[in-house]
């Protein structure tokens, strides 16, 4: 344990110790580091590997569906593939990438903190995430194969009669580990944001990304313990002879759905809010303007979090045992704060001097794709429409629009913050080619599925009726999946091509927030010095003293 001093003076000799941090190197550094930047980078690399694994599963699924009676995989393999595709993408990629990877690296620097509040707990979170991922994926190497009951693990499909074998247990075990990893990260982020801010960094001066991560952390603490409890009940049903989710012993199968979705719907916002934060930062920086409606943005985020605890059963409309009007009203209400965010993103771009860098293109692509996903979500919040489209490809298309928007936002985040983490920029031309493949691929991939869903094609089926139009639409969707795969490949090519080629400097984007005040990559405890914080854009204020910080609602012209 070392006492860490606050960076007060410029070039203070006392802080040179931090810069020359003599820690272990190589594999020992990876195993023992408690530095949030090293842990965050481990998270980033692991999450991107999971994205590639989950993406490969998706390509196989789309290959199978490219013809009506596909023979690429057997029915049993298909069940494992769609289960593990969903599980890997939701549990092992999107969540950890959102609140483990970039959040871990950026949030402490954005508020002027030397590290996360609990560095060793942070390291433990990463190890639980990595071992949880290995646990879940190792199901493929067991005799019975991996879990095959869908990523939602509905009872009674997931009980010991319908899903015997180690694969299902490994799925439960992997989720227990990654669940605790998420809970610890939630505790860590909350404590860091509450207690380690720099002087003058009041709550209403924190960057939107940090705000969104705070709200995400609170949602994690509300939701994940419920999932963990549900998983323990499921395990007990499978092995200890309890009958919590089985009708035979007086249990209630639909209770699993209540528990799962009470976690599952907040989880949607746990995934989405960090990416909303990234996009907000990026749009403001590349529009050369402050965020439009800063406080409105924060209240919208808090409203989404508040409402998200009361919408879970809109996944269960067709069970016939839930209160339809309540969940319909609450789900529709979420469109209001989300709409506020949409208008604020557009308002931030409005009359700005927009710089279409790769990060900005990805962010604008996110806004479009998320709008498609969001609007179709409003349809699904209406029970009569949901009865018609439940468990069809319409739902699949809806949430793929949403999550592919998040992938676009995540890529925007990597292009924007990557230079801060590594010290080197990525190639912009390759980045823009990657953007067009990803953006067009996403639309080509999702739009046929909307039509298929409205025509009644059910999800999770390895074969479908040999109708020429259905085959055609499925082939277009498969083409979209190939384009998305090419874009991911282009990202890897860009990483290799740009390796240590374009030095970034401290602030390549002339950005607003504190992480751009320090060096790229930042020193061991992040800062040698801090600027005086007088607004939510401290780095901008320091670099552009001619545009002094204005209070909210104040205009430059009113003060001569």
């Amino acid at each position, binding site marked *: 344990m*070392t006492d860490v001093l606050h960076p007060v003076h410029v070039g203070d000799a006392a802080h040179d110790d931090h810069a020359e941090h003599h820690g272990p190197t190589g594999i020992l550094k990876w195993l023992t580091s*408690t530095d949030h930047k090293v842990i965050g980078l481990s998270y980033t690399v692991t999450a991107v590997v999971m994205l590639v694994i989950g993406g490969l599963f998706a390509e196989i699924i789309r290959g199978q569906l490219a013809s009506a009676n596909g023979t690429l995989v057997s029915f049993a393999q298909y069940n494992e593939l769609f289960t593990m595709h969903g599980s890997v993408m939701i549990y092992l990629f999107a969540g950890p990438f959102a609140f483990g990877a970039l959040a871990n690296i950026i949030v402490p620097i954005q508020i002027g903190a030397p590290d996360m509040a609990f560095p060793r707990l942070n390291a433990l979170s990463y190890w639980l995430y990595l*071992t949880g991922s290995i646990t879940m994926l190792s199901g493929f190497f067991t005799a019975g194969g991996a879990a095959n009951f869908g990523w939602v693990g509905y009872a009674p499909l997931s009980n010991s009669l319908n899903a015997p074998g180690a694969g299902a247990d490994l799925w439960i075990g992997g989720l227990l580990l990654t669940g605790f990893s998420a809970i610890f990260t939630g505790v860590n982020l909350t404590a860091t944001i509450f207690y*380690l801010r720099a*002087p003058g960094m009041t709550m209403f001066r924190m960057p939107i990304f940090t705000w969104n991560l705070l709200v995400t952390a609170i949602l994690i603490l509300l939701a994940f313990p419920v999932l963990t409890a549900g998983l323990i009940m499921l395990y007990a049903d499978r092995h200890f002879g309890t009958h919590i989710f089985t009708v035979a012993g007086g249990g209630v199968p639909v209770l699993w759905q209540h528990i799962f979705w009470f976690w599952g719907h907040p989880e949607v916002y746990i995934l989405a809010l960090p990416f909303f934060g990234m996009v907000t930062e990026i749009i403001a920086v590349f529009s050369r303007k402050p965020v439009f409606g800063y406080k409105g943005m924060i209240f919208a985020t808090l409203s989404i979090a508040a409402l998200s605890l009361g919408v879970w059963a809109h996944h269960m409309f067709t069970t016939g045992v839930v209160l339809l009007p309540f969940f319909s009203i609450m789900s529709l209400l979420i469109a209001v704060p989300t709409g506020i965010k949409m208008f604020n993103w557009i308002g931030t771009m409005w009359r700005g001097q927009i710089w279409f860098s790769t990060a900005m293109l990805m962010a604008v692509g996110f806004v479009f794709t998320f709008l498609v996903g969001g609007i179709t979500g409003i349809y699904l919040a209406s029970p009569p429409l949901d009865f018609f489209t439940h468990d069809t490809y319409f739902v699949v298309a809806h949430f793929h629009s949403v999550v592919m928007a998040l992938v676009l936002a995540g890529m925007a985040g990597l292009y924007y913050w990557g230079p801060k983490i590594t010290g080197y920029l990525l190639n912009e031309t390759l980045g823009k080619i990657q953007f067009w493949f990803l953006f067009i691929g996403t639309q080509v991939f999702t739009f046929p599925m909307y039509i298929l869903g409205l025509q009644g094609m059910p999800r999770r089926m390895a074969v479908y009726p040999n109708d020429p139009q259905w085959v055609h639409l499925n082939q277009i969707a498969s083409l979209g999946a190939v384009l998305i795969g090419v874009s991911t490949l282009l990202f890897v090519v860009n990483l290799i091509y740009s390796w240590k080629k374009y030095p970034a400097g401290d602030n390549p984007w002339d950005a607003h927030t504190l992480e751009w005040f320090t060096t790229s990559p930042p020193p061991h405890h992040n800062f040698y010095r801090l600027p005086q914080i007088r607004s939510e854009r401290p780095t901008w204020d320091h670099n552009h003293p001619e545009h002094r910080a204005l209070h909210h609602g104040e205009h430059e012209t009113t003060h001569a």
Partner: protein
Amino acid sequence: MKVEAKMLLALGTFFGIMCAVYWNWSLENAGGVMMFAGMLLCFLPGLYYYWWSRRMPTRPEDNPQATREEGAGVVGAFPGTSIWPFVLGMGAFTIVLSLVFGIWLLVPGLGLAAWAFLGGTSEGRRGGQH
């Protein structure tokens, strides 16, 4: 500290109202209990922060006019490196594998976890490596 407290209390109040409406209208217990617990989870830290925010002087990070010098001093004690999170992680991994491959794996799993608890605690007490 006041903003943090008010945010949690506001969330808790909203969950409380939502819980009352839902439970009385639907008479479904699982969701009602979970929403009620969500409310408690917001009130518990929220009330604690509120209680403290009225008893402590304004912190530099809560003062919009704070200067950098007000934050001078020790921020906290941070470990440079530590192997114990890795050991504890491997312990948790082994414990979870015991759920699948056999209860005997609990022995090495709990052993690793206990070793990590002892190691981590004593590292915190005596001060670890730089």
